[in-house]
């Protein structure tokens, strides 16, 4: 686990248990009380400045609670979260100045106001002057292809545009940290690709934006994230690069070689090998010696889904 001197987000021994509401009152009236819910247990990791960090896990695994704690909306039971050195409980306002959260929650906007009026309201809350807010909105509307719907009421916008507006709102005050919860869930394939490109460019720009990405789209996580954390039942089960997570799942990989020249037609040769062994080298040499022309070589390692399943099943057997 990487813990650098000045990470953008630093999470230390974080646990969250939601208390059962009015437990003592219910006990007094002899009513059955709900049990406290342990949402997160002893989580520690750090996200480096400019890193795109993925958080994957099943529904109810604790991703949303973790994101909300970073966003200062929920207080941790124990442990701490800091964003660029500011504690999320003790200096919550300073933390909020440094983060932008985009969720797929449509109800977080005012439906009778236009896209522009909605963003202006939030820009003012961030303390932006009207002139600066208008300039920033213009940039964001262009970047997220929202110019045509800027004057449309939020309630009349398509789901994809609503989602893009949520990302625009998160980026309004140019926060150095973005928390993105399934940013491409409702987007068409082209728009989703552009959004991924935008996310990549934000992390690469100067000064870079740190991104904590929560998603169920594992291919997207794999493409975008430098590191990924697998969260299961409130605990971080693994943190690593996507390729290392995949290789942890299985040391075996499928190799598919497409060749031409043996029978005059294209053929596909497939075999399983131990990652990093010499089999591929040997097979390629053999094929070339027999006069085949190598057209393509594909390898299929274990996927992030395999990794997720592996940790989930480990947890189930505990």
């Amino acid at each position, binding site marked *: 686990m990487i813990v650098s001197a000045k990470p953008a987000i630093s999470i230390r021994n974080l646990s969250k248990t939601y208390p059962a509401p009015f437990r003592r009152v219910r006990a007094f009236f002899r009513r059955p009380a709900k049990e406290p819910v342990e949402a997160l247990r002893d989580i520690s990791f750090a996200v480096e400045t400019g890193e795109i960090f993925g958080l994957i896990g099943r529904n109810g695994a604790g991703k949303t609670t973790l994101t909300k704690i970073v966003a200062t909306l929920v207080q941790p039971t124990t442990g701490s979260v800091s964003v660029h050195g500011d504690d999320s409980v003790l200096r919550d306002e300073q933390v909020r100045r440094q983060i932008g959260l985009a969720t797929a*929650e449509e109800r*977080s906007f005012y439906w009778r106001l236009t896209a522009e009026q909605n963003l202006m309201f939030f820009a*003012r809350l961030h303390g932006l002057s009207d002139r600066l807010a208008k300039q920033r909105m213009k940039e964001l509307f262009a970047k997220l292809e929202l110019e045509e719907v800027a004057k449309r009421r939020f309630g009349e916008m398509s789901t994809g545009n609503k989602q893009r507006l949520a990302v625009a709102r998160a980026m309004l005050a140019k926060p150095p940290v973005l928390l993105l919860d399934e940013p491409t869930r409702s987007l068409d394939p082209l728009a989703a690709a552009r959004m991924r490109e935008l996310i990549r460019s934000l992390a690469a720009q100067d000064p870079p934006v740190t991104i904590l990405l929560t998603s169920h789209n594992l291919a997207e996580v794999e493409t975008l994230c430098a590191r990924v954390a697998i969260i299961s039942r409130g605990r971080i089960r693994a943190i690593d690069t996507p390729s290392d997570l995949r290789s942890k799942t299985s040391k075996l990989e499928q190799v598919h070689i497409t060749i031409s020249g043996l029978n005059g037609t294209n053929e596909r040769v497939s075999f399983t090998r131990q990652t990093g062994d010499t089999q591929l080298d040997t097979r390629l040499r053999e094929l070339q010696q027999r006069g085949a022309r190598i057209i393509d070589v594909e390898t299929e390692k274990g996927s992030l889904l395999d990794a997720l399943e592996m940790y989930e099943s480990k947890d189930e057997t505990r």
Partner: protein
Amino acid sequence: MSSLRLLPRRIFAFVARDFRLFVSYRMQFFLRILSVLTVVTTLFFISKIFAGFTDPQYSQWRDPLASWLTGLAVLNYFMAGFSSLATSIRQEQMQGTLESVLLTPINLPTVIVASSAWDFLETTFFSFLYLFFGRIFFGVHYRGSFFLAVVFLLLTTVVLACLGILSASFAMVFKRGDPFGIFLGAGSALFSGVFFPTQLLREYAGPKLGNISLLLPATYGLDGIRQVLIEGHGLRDVTRPLFTLLCFLAVLLPFSLWVFGRAVRRAKREGSLIQY
């Protein structure tokens, strides 16, 4: 930039937002104006029944229409004072927008104060309409210092806003069933002398029930405003209600802020800040 310096801008953001939402329902606005006019007209005709029958000991009630109109205008204001704080946060919770507002660098007390600012502006407008319609259509005369009346109005509203903070704390923890709103809403209309002199309560219902009016800040606010606007009294004559309101403020302000702080901490701990 400090939160305090940004406060006016943030209040403006909420007022601008609420104004836009308000004008998106134009019909409702005109219907409300019409309803105020209807109420004032109805009260005018009812007041004609009592013309010449008013007991001279109730000096503020010589012109019942003037008393009712001041009562209603002020009651409107008082209701906004203690209900809008709780209502605003509840509305944001129900709309689902509270989370996105709280994600900006703004603290919860600012959200509550700023999001109820439009309510006060709207109430000021409609309260003024009661007095305005009374004056231009039915010849009701007000005298005395308007400045002193406004002082009473503001002081009473701040006292009731303290109860509003208690109410908002209750709404934040229990999500619904706000007892302050129910008791103070119905209680103020009945016991604080909006529609009839509080002395009548003591006469007919006995001292126990009649003395409830003495526990309500609205009673002193209304008494002060009527003494100024209807009887034309000056500052020296209204020291008793003024002092009583200041005592209410001295007790309720620190208490309500303490309760509110505890409610916010509890909601954040339970993760229920945005639930409804």
